């Protein structure tokens, strides 16, 4: 019915004879499909989808197609279109040292597409940005973009347009990654060697995405070279990586295997101190992918990720946590205009804590696991309408916490009730070229979230006391939430280089992350909506102006947004995250609002590339039971946020880079007084988040030395200096009785990373 409604509005042009040219765009050397390549035929054109496929329907005639992709040499292709054609297109990789204007270093924004609030990056363009410990990290790189903010010094967590860290949908080959950070947030789970493409949607999310309020981070893994074998790798300050890929059957199937492991723990082992060297601290990631071209119409992909962190303190505490995901996909062409993808997706996050404390030996286990089926069609109806529709069904199983005593233990076993939910979404959207200057994308996503038994559900009063308990058996539907999420985006193009866009989007979120600490913790708790915890809903409107300058070498983007959020969840004061009481007794609910202005000027080509971005924004929350029910600044409310990123190709050997960031300190709660309880000083608080951390700023420098390639062997040495002028940025400010001046109290600033040099060596053959 939804589809029918959309079809009704679709204008079917049937003037002259038209034919369709379609195909898959791949890189010549590796056979990797190219995402987002543009295919231009005069005034009209299209871009390749996430599997490199494109379809373009044109009147009969002779055309010169211009095909270009990021980091690829553009190519012109003459076609005589007098029948439907399917052509494979290969593009040649631009060599790193080639100084050619036909190569765009970054993909750039489409002036004409109605899609706004989008940021796209390829691993190639982020590879020279200096980073902490020289560990290339896409999550830290996207924090340099306007509207995306870092969760803290050296942290891979991020906030988008006032949203919380859990309101970002992070997808790796379509599988949800529930905890994208290693080592309490200092590194992300994404090994950049295995990654092809990164797309962030800050607003105006297309209808095929849903489930989180503020953003979508869609990460695509490489497929693996199907032409020849290749080995790549790197050795850095804290980790080593290896990457192996190659054909299984030449030009038909390929594999990719990528692994990374840190060796900070090796340094611990080197310590002569027996209590230090008995501590454990490491993480690893494993990415693997297989793909197989069955025929001209079918291709399958199997990809997986497995990562784990292990931390242990002596013999007493240990914790390990990690994600695993698996995606099986089948691309099928029903016709040269109808592309289909079917995915079976598994995703899992769990942690396990073990405590060996005298007579108290026990483990705590928690897990969230999803099974997904996703069917999506892209129908290139005609050159004015491009339709996308499908369904997405997910079964969630949450095990909030299980205490298991081991050996001789005075601890009783405890099993917090498992939660089951079945989430379904139907979606459809159409991108319609309404006129010569106007493009419109309109769509709808209908989301249902069914909470399933078995289990007890509760009624809770305003003080957080359970007043009633309802028992449901296995198979019972506790409650089903149905939400419609309209999506609308319009662009008006003034000319070839300037446009204005507007969009409205509603997003619904049924999984909520509870975090009691101010930093990322592996034990932050995912909970599903219940009869009491309602789906979070966000409505966002945005308006943008886009201008390409100086022959498309510069790109100016300005976007303004206003967002409201309903059913926001927060902890009650003094809440206990590990309690066995119903979680609803620990929670409070309210709303949020966020608005801001983002602007970026980007230089896309030439020896010097980079951007300057600035965000002015405000983010507030109003939760019943916090701050006297008044609006207060969210922790991530940062008025000003500036990033400057620059990369300069000095010569064939050297690439120099630098970035500088500045942002207003987080809104935090500081004491408004003190008193004494139990003979100790206790701090008294009034308003929530009424103070500011000191402003944060930092300069990072990097230099990459590219060695002369020898046959197939290429290598480079990267140097970086994080926080080059040694700014002591406050990570946290604590309050305590003074150690030097007894009888007084003092504020203590803890700063983390100051002048962190690093070096890493990367190679490929």
């Amino acid at each position, binding site marked *: 019915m939804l589809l029918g409604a959309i079809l009704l509005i679709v204008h079917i042009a049937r003037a002259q004879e038209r034919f369709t040219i379609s195909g898959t765009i791949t890189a010549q050397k590796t056979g990797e499909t190219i995402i987002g390549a543009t295919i231009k035929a005069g005034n009209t054109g299209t871009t390749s989808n996430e599997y490199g496929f494109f379809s373009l329907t044109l009147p009969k005639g002779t055309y010169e197609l211009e095909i270009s992709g990021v980091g690829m040499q553009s190519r012109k292709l003459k076609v005589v279109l007098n029948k439907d054609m399917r052509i494979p297109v290969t593009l040649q990789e631009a060599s790193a040292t080639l100084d050619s204007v036909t190569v765009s270093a970054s993909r750039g924004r489409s002036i004409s597409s109605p899609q706004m609030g989008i940021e796209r990056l390829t691993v190639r363009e982020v590879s020279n940005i200096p980073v902490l410990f020289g560990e290339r990290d896409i999550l830290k790189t996207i924090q340099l973009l306007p509207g995306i903010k870092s969760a803290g010094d050296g942290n891979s967590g991020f906030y988008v347009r006032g949203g919380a860290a859990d309101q970002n949908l992070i997808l790796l080959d379509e599988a949800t990654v529930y905890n994208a950070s290693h080592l309490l947030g200092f590194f992300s789970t994404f090994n950049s060697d295995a990654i092809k493409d990164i797309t962030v949607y800050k607003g105006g999310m297309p209808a095929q995405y849903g489930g989180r309020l503020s953003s979508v981070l869609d990460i695509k893994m490489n497929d693996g070279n199907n032409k020849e074998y290749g080995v790549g790798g790197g050795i850095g300050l804290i980790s080593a990586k290896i990457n192996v890929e190659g054909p299984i059957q030449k030009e038909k199937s390929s594999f990719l295997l990528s692994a990374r492991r840190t060796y900070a723990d090796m340094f611990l082992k080197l310590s002569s101190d027996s209590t230090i060297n008995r501590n454990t601290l490491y993480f690893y990631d494993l990415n693997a992918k297989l793909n197989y071209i069955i025929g001209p119409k079918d291709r399958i992909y199997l990809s997986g990720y497995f990562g784990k962190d292990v931390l242990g303190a002596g013999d*007493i505490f240990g*914790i390990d946590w990690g994600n695993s995901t698996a995606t099986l996909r089948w691309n099928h062409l029903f016709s040269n205009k109808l592309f289909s993808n079917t995915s079976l997706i598994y995703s899992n996050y769990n942690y396990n804590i073990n405590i060996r404390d005298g007579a108290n030996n026990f483990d705590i286990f928690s897990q969230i696991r999803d099974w997904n089926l996703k069917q999506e069609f892209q129908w290139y109806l005609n050159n004015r309408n491009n339709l996308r529709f499908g369904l997405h069904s997910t079964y969630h199983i949450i095990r909030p916490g299980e205490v298991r005593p081991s050996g001789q233990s005075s601890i009783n076993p405890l099993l917090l009730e498992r939660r089951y939910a079945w989430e379904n979404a139907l979606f459809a959207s159409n991108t319609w070229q309404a006129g010569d200057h106007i493009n419109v994308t309109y769509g709808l996503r209908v989301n249902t979230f069914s909470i399933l038994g078995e289990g007890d559900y509760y009624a809770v009063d305003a003080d957080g006391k359970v007043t009633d308990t309802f028992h449901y058996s296995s198979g019972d539907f506790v409650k089903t939430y149905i939400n419609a999420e309209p999506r609308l985006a319009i662009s008006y193009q003034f000319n070839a280089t300037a446009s204005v866009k507007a969009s409205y989007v509603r997003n619904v979120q049924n999984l909520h992350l509870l975090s009691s600490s101010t930093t990322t913790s592996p034990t932050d708790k995912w909970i599903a909506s219940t009869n009491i915890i309602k789906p979070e809903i966000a409505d966002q409107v945005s308006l943008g102006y886009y201008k390409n300058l100086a022959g498309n070498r510069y790109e100016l983007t300005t976007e303004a947004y206003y967002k409201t959020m309903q059913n926001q969840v927060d902890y009650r004061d003094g809440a206990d995250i590990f309690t066995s009481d119903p979680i609803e007794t620990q929670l409070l609910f309210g709303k949020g609002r966020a608005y801001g202005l983002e602007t970026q000027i980007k230089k896309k080509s030439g020896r010097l590339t980079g951007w300057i971005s600035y965000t002015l924004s405000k983010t507030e929350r109003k939760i019943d039971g916090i701050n006297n029910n008044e609006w207060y600044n969210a922790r991530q409310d940062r008025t000003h946020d500036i990033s400057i990123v620059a990369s300069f190709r000095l010569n064939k050997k050297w690439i120099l880079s630098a970035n500088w960031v500045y942002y207003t300190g987080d809104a935090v709660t500081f004491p408004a007084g003190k008193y004494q309880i139990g003979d100790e000083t206790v701090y008294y608080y009034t308003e929530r988040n009424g103070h500011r951390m000191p402003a944060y700023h930092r300069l990072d420098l990097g230099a990459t030395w590219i060695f002369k390639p020898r046959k197939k062997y290429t290598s480079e040495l990267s140097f970086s200096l994080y926080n080059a002028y040694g700014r002591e940025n406050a990570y946290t400010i604590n309050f305590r009785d003074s150690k030097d001046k007894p009888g007084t109290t003092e504020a203590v600033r803890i700063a983390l990373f100051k002048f962190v040099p690093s070096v890493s060596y990367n190679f490929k053959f």
Partner: protein
Amino acid sequence: MHKSISYLMFLLLAVLAVSCEKVIHVDLNDAEKRLVIEGVVGNQAGTSKVLVSTTKSFYDGNDFAGISGAIVSVTDEEGVVTSFTETSTGIYEAPSLIGKEGKTYTLLVELEGQTFTAVSTMQQQAMIDTIYVQDDNLFGETRKVVQVQFTDPPGRGNGYRFVQYVNGRKEKEIFIYSDELIDGNTATISLRYDDDDDDATIHSGDTIVVDMFCIEDRIYKYWFSLQQGASGNNWSTPANPVTNIIGGALGYFSAQTVERKTMVAP
């Protein structure tokens, strides 16, 4: 449990970062003064005591003067009212009031026309079986840690608070424990804390005193939320502890049992 995460955080920072600590000046707002009541009904003579004070500015000294002139009383279940007398500024005592397990007590504090009340029930006392010192291998060094063994009475809702003195010096750390995971069992608790000061660590020959208080579940929550939100550590979101006092005062009122054990560290 909660502490284990922060220990790991410390370990991580120690390895990854040269974290540096500096005393700084932060501009703070001064809120209007609030009344603070710390009320206890104990099960031994001389342990029932109510302290009345107020908040003060962060940058003032730590001399927390008491407030005189409050009318303080405790009423038991039978309606027997015991008046407290001010023995020194802000300290109100009723030496004759000895609480009994299972009985509920109501505190009433009146000051300058304002009334504050709170209710607390004395829990069944769990006695200490034994205390001993054990070597603990955590970070950097081997430390002596006091272990307390006791048996929790069956039924959820028992909370415990311990105070440790080493050679008469009180350890700042808040030691609290709930029976959530140990209900009805014989448990051994480690009084572990992170303090590098030499006089805070236990050496052979030191005299160790441990006080054990059996507290209600909601008083456990008071101490828990104080430790999480109001002890000055900003790793978690700061907030005032969840009090059981009605009327707008900070603090708590607890009917609690007390037991003291003394030993010399081997």
